[in-house]
């Protein structure tokens, strides 16, 4: 048996260390460490309520809008303000822009460069993939970065800037868009659509959204574009058979007010990936367990928890606590969102093994990207001229509540308690807190810890590219994980 440590694990957002035990070239145990702690939950306590809108987004530079919205939703949950319709739409547009940017950043800058590694130099598919996706020097990043910057110009119109905007309030958004702004938003989305239809999918977005089964994916794989190239490499490297998820996925529901009936664009729910059974997500079933984290205390509901660092805690190996739902680990992310929303393709992707896989996660992310652009176009069209973007805010003095949003990487929840206009408790469970959790008090591993077990790494050990693929398939955001 050999024990190996993989780190610094880069091309993820933030700091990550993975400890592995390998027997006969196979991983038999994994421990996932979040090695960074800043203490936002402690910083927020004692502050005026609205300061959460300043502090919370700064937890994370890559999903700051999601963090803003979780804080704003937590406030709204107990102060009863009804946001302006235009503000709801503008929020959805900006939030989708961030999530879309994150999905694409993951694909182009974080995930695909691993297939340009020397370890694959002998593969038949290698040469064009290497030229396209080589980190920093590949042709894809040269094409993608300007497209990404163009997409984020949506933030300049709606949110002032990105990351770390103060535009998102319980009552709506702070900048009204006039006719010229609306036309500019439309033009930005047209450019984004053009990039996706030319470079990523090489087909109309509507055709991507219509893919309903694995045969449909096979037809795409025979074509042009980066998505097709990924599908071919995924088939050649068996990405549809590795990185198996925990068997349950969840979504907290995405884009409130963005659905056809003014409800959610993507439904909430908990899905058993083997049976396909779907149930409602009930936030009261969430517990966080610090048994293997550098925090004092016992497992309990986040709404009643505090974060008190204890660097000497025995058995601790991470700054992340272990969230559990009915006592079990959950996977979150685009695949969870699409399964909870009833996507036929997502169901087809997990049908073979009854589990989520590396390939399923990446495909779900990219197909969701196509769905998002179509939704954003609709939301821009629905912006009503002359109507308000924000209702008057609220100044809650006492109350408690929870804000639930779907960040790019999955469900994000903020629990907040306020007394006398000051925050008295603040707890955050982020997507990667779920996916990259350490063990809980019962010794049950987190989703990544379980997904790595059984992986064949052979002689390469820590250098085996499959480790990179499995870890990055979750698109971890480590700065959110332990905050």
């Amino acid at each position: 048996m050999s024990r190996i440590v993989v780190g610094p694990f880069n091309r993820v957002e933030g700091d990550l260390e993975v400890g592995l035990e390998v027997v006969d070239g196979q991983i038999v145990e994994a421990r996932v460490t979040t090695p960074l702690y800043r203490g936002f939950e402690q910083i927020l306590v004692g502050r005026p309520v609205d300061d959460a809108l300043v502090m919370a987004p700064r937890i994370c530079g890559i999903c700051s809008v999601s963090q803003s919205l979780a804080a704003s939703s937590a406030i709204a949950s107990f102060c009863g303000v009804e946001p302006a319709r235009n503000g709801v739409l503008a929020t959805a547009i900006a939030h989708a822009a961030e999530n879309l940017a994150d999905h694409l950043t993951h694909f182009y800058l974080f995930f695909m460069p691993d297939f340009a590694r020397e370890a694959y130099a002998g593969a038949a598919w290698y040469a064009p993939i290497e030229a396209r996706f080589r980190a920093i020097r590949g042709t894809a990043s040269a094409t993608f970065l300007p497209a990404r910057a163009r997409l984020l110009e949506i933030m300049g119109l709606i949110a002032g800037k990105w990351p770390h905007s103060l535009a998102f309030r319980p009552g709506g958004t702070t900048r009204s868009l006039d006719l010229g702004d609306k036309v500019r938003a439309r033009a930005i989305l047209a450019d984004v659509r053009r990039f996706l239809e030319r470079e990523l999918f090489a087909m109309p977005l509507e055709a991507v959204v219509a893919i309903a089964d694995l045969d449909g994916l096979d037809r795409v794989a025979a074509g042009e574009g980066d998505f097709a190239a990924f599908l071919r490499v995924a088939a050649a490297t068996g990405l549809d058979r590795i990185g198996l998820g925990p068997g349950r996925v969840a979504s907290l529901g995405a884009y409130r007010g963005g659905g056809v009936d003014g409800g959610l664009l993507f439904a909430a729910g908990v899905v058993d990936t083997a049976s396909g059974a779907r149930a409602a997500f009930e936030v009261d079933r969430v517990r966080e367990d610090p048994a293997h984290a550098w925090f004092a205390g016992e497992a309990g509901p986040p709404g009643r928890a505090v974060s008190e660092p204890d660097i000497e805690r025995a058995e601790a190996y991470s700054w992340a606590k272990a969230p559990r739902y009915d006592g079990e680990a959950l996977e979150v992310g685009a695949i969870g969102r699409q399964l909870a929303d009833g996507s036929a393709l997502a169901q087809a992707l997990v049908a073979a093994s009854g589990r989520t896989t590396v390939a399923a996660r990446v495909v779900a992310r990219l197909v969701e990207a196509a769905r998002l652009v179509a939704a954003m176009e609709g939301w821009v069209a629905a912006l009503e001229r002359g109507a308000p973007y924000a209702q008057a805010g609220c100044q809650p003095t006492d109350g408690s509540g929870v804000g639930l949003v779907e960040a790019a990487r999955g469900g994000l929840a903020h629990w907040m308690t306020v007394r006398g206009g000051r925050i008295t408790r603040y707890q955050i469970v982020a997507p990667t807190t779920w996916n990259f959790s350490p063990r809980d008090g019962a010794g049950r591993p987190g989703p990544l810890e379980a997904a790595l077990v059984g992986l064949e790494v052979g002689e390469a050990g820590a250098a085996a590219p499959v480790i990179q693929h499995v870890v990055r398939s979750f698109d971890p955001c480590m700065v959110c994980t332990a905050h």
Partner: protein
Amino acid sequence: MTERRTSLLWLQAGSCGGCTMSVLGHDGAGIFAALEAAAIDLLWHPSASEATGAEARAILESVEAGTTALDVLVIEGSILTGPNGSGRCQMLAGTGRTMVDWVRSLSARAGVVVAVGTCAAFGGIPMAEPDPAEATGLQFDGADRGGALGAGFRGRSGLPVVAVAGCAPHPGWIVETLSAIAAGELEAGDLDGLGRPKFFADHLAHHGCSRNEFYEFKASAERASDRGCLMEHLGCKATQAVGDCNQRGWNGSGSCTDGGYACIGCTSPAFETARGFLTTPKIAGIPVGLPLDMPKAWFMALAALSKSATPKRVRLNAVSDHVVVPPGRAKRSPGEGGEG
């Protein structure tokens, strides 16, 4: 002639990664092209480089040993010295060493150390009370000289820590600073007293604000999304905060104040110590924070005068989220030009 190239290593200390996200949004051909145009070789960047695990450790060790020459060390994020001075709030993954240890060690090898973002410059948001991770900046602890490297630290080139402050900084501030360093154009005299490059730090965020007419007449926004000046009621510190924020676009055309919300002074040391960011603190109805270098009595007299002279158009538009009264049309003679 052989092109002089500049080696650059980028590390993320106690950061949110937002400075990297900002610079990835650099306009034109993108950040990698911009670095190449400045003849900068990226030794390693945690978000961008292929090298991982042992490969990345080898790069860091080679720099630390002096085998690989390091011209520019970029640190993003606060330096975390907690808990209890141990630095264990951030271990550099895979190395068994604290990030503060790595930062000090690698800084000793660097030609220039650049703090990207207010966290690395001054401590920033993680330093906010109760400062759980015992955060500090590279050469400042809030507004006080010192920090992780100490007041006397100089890079091999002789420069103190260059502080590209901002939370997050404009991508242009980062790229222009790094490019100027690579070209040998950034000198000690180009930095202000806090190490911030003057090309952006000699301006105020207020300069070029699209709300300037409302400011002139003290026609103030009363709630979020109003078009009026954000200073009197909604917490705006743009008249006290450095940065050419309103002289260049953020994400295309944006800025904080154009986006409808207050400047929170994110380029300043200790900006995180504020309480109630979105409400202007007042004493006897008068905002506490007035423009940096304006005599208070003068400001009050001018404010009273301009308030009394506020046109109806400005007064009404200030408390609306769209223009309710357009600029008036004057009677003009042929050949005079202008609206008419």
